[in-house]
């Protein structure tokens, strides 16, 4: 019970910190000191304390977007195990509910962006919709490969079934799935090489441009949901790499946290060593993720 609660409470508390790790790694690569690790918490608190400026063009859809997105991300989080800790909720077939909850959040984020009538936000919304449409089948292929590998159709179950022993026998499968999941993590969280969250030109953004008009508590919701989403994908991807469950609550939790922060650091390294791809080159990269997942599926065999 405590373990299940921990796999939700830890991300709720520490997801922004994982995000801060990315910033810190990128700053160090660039030879800068970087902002304090706790700055992101202060930013969120500052936004929560502010009033709001709403566009005259917008309706309830604009205000509903961040709220629904945060609720959907929180619900999706409840399916995600953390290292050796089981997820709060788990049942066979939950992978589909998990993916569709994230899609629900995305739908309303897109609608909120379109509600402003801004061309920039329309552009971002269009790209977000297209890339997630291409990423979703790849995610399902990767998860199906794990399902076939483990004989379990729940997210917790298929990740828990991966042990050190299964890396000895099925290393190619697991490695391919991990790479595919890492690529999907970058795409779903709008990181380099799919999108550059720190760019300063609206025309080239995807996620950041969709939320240009949000401010105050709405923006706090968006930021927080974004850190949670990164946590979700990082936890799923690294559960494969850290297969051991010791049985001790503390060690499992620490083990899981180490995995998530390592994944965040890996994102930071990726962002530092490569540039964003041209937008037309994104679909082939996503197709490559799909190809890895499909290859993994075939390697699992019969």
């Amino acid at each position, binding site marked *: 019970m405590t373990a299940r609660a921990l796999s939700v409470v830890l991300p709720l508390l520490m997801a922004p910190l994982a995000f801060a790790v990315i910033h810190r790694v990128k700053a160090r690569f660039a030879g800068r000191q970087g902002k304090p690790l706790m700055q992101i918490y202060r930013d969120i608190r500052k936004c929560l304390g502010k009033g709001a400026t709403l*566009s005259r063009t917008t309706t309830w859809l604009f205000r509903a977007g961040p*709220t629904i997105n945060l609720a959907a991300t929180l619900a999706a989080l409840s399916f995600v195990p953390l290292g050796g800790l089981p997820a709060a909720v788990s049942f066979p077939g939950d992978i589909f*509910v998990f993916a*569709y909850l994230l899609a629900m959040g995305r739908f309303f984020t897109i*609608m909120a962006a379109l509600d402003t009538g801004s061309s920039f936000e329309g552009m971002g919304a269009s790209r977000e*919709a297209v890339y997630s449409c291409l990423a979703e089948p790849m995610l399902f292929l990767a998860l199906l490969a794990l399902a076939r590998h483990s004989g379990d159709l729940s997210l917790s179950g298929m990740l828990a079934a991966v042990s050190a022993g299964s890396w000895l026998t099925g290393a190619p499968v697991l490695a391919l799935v991990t790479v595919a999941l890492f690529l999907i993590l970058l795409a779903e969280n709008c990181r380099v090489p799919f999108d550059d969250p720190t760019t300063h030109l609206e025309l080239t953004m995807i996620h950041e441009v969709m939320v240009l008009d949000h401010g105050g508590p709405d923006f706090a919701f968006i930021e927080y949901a974004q850190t949670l989403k990164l946590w979700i994908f990082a936890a799923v991807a690294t559960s494969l790499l850290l297969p051991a469950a010791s049985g001790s609550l503390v060690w499992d939790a620490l083990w899981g946290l180490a995995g998530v922060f390592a994944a965040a650091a890996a994102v930071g390294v990726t962002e530092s060593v490569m540039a964003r791809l041209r937008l037309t080159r994104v679909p082939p990269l996503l197709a490559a993720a799909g190809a890895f997942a499909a290859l993994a599926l075939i390697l699992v065999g019969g």
Partner: protein
Amino acid sequence: MPLYLTALFVLLATALAALASGRGRAANLVGPLGCLAGCGLGLFAAVSALTAPVPPVLRLPWSVPYGAISLTIDPLSALFLLPVFILGAAAALYGKGYLSGLAGKRHLGAHWFFFCLMVLGMALTVCAANAVFFLVSWEIMSLAPFFLICLHHEEDRVRTAARTYLFAAHLGTAFLMAFFLILGHLAGSMEFSAMARVAPDVLGPYAPALFFLALAGFGVKAGIVPLHVWLPEAHPAAPSHVSAFMSGALIKAGVYGVLRSLTLLGPLAPWMGQTLLAIGILTGVLGLLAGLGQGELKRFLAFSSIENMGIIFLGLGLGVLAAATGHPGPALFALSGLLFHVINHALLKGLLFFGAGSVLHAVGHGFMERLGGLSKRMPFTAGACVLAGAAISGLPPGNAFFGELLIYVGGGLAAMDMPLTDAVWAWTGVAGLAFIGGLSVIGFTRACGMVFSGEPRTADAVNAHDPDPLMRAAMWSLGLLALGAALAAPFLFTAMLPAARLLLAGQSTVLPVLPSEVVNPETLLTAAASLTFGAAALALILAFARSRLLAGRSVRSHGTWDCGYIRPAPRMQYTASSYAEPMTVLFRRLLGEKRRFTPPEGLFPATGTSRFATETPDRVKDDFFAPLFSAVLTACDALKRFQHGNLNLYILYLLATLVILLAIALGFAA
């Protein structure tokens, strides 16, 4: 059965009474009220038949050769009666409001006559248990919409659409006649029950031909690619309540037909499942990709209906493949999922067509590039359309999600259990369904965002308003039913199961009590429903928290952020075609998008000299059917030599035909 027959008689009486009450308001009162009463009774009959332990049966002699008035309401029939009567009633309610401005200008008596006939025809079609009787009902159901589409017959595009519909409907029926004649010949009877008993070794050699005949004949009605060409023409041309019924219910007759013919074709084979699965993915993906290129709201909705037919066929393909390879558990999941999706799509697409109808009613057209900002002017319609659009994209906690979830889990279980060669198909199915879902999100965010969000792009949209109470009531009823279907998903699954079992009754494998030992469907649906509705409740709590946070603080209004530009104008908003551009560019080869571009010339180009336009044609229609039909016409020209108007020669033809027939008959006798 008595209740069902009463419903049919009420519908028939309403049809005649509407015809007798003339062109005006009287007909617009008698028609909808009678239709509502008939459909209400029918709904009770359908629900009681669904729960009946033994299917109600009626068999009366009929003077038509090989025919009999033979009706059976088994679980499969009862399930398909639900969309017929629900949408019949809702469309009658909506249509009364929609047509009230046309009283006297159009012959509303005739309109309601054909409307009742269409509902009646479909109610008979899904219950007919004799092939001759089935074909007669099928024709009633198929002919009536032609007259309904023609309401605005003075418009050229409406006449073209109605003609395309008529051609398609009849070509489909031709395949069905061949199908039933061959099957009836093998069975020695035109009763479905006799056809189902044909020994597998007798049926075997004919099975592939029969399968493809049924697929072609019923597929035209269902709108599967490449037989879908009539659908995007007919739906926008018809008045919206008729489009709602056609899209929600009528095209499901095609699905029903395929399902029913599968029960007649003996043991299912893996290739059947693979064919259906491939068609499903093709229909779903191509339907939506083509839909993304459409600028008109109802035309886009028509393409979305094609996509949903794709989902249904995808589920069917997965189910048949799993059943044929000895995996009844996943099969039951996929089949009950597709049946659930039939109901879900009916409710949501009906609602969306009503919403589109309200936009058309208020603005006069549905061209997305000329609309915008309607959610301020018609908040009810906008809310209904956005929520229905999210739900039909399969997003939780919408009702369509639970149907798709069953298909997904069926596919997932099949992908885990099957040997590699079959599992590849299941993986393709799951990935295909995910891709279709993503495309649907693009399509519906685009349609809703362009029409309802932002600022009005032209003056057309400025004076729009929500529809009258009657039309709103129709939309409320479908919306609440959709919500109810989502909340009651676990119970509805139990109601679907008998029909899904019926589809597998002819298989040799032993059916498990529940679909799978690995996954309990009822637990799955209950858990999924509580979690996703929990997420919705959480959203409400967060919204409350947000409003508490903002209470007492400054909340200001301002223009949308325009990056410092001084004079933003509504025309600068992102357009529907730009929104879909990344996808249409990615698949440009496939879609055959046409671009017309006149670039600006000189250093100071004059206003209005440069132009840019894109158009996404229906390639199946333009590159396949159009050449085919013109070739047929050219070939028919050759026959004109025999059609010269000389009466004497015509009589000679008759005589020659008689002599030849006589010779053949005598030859056989000898």
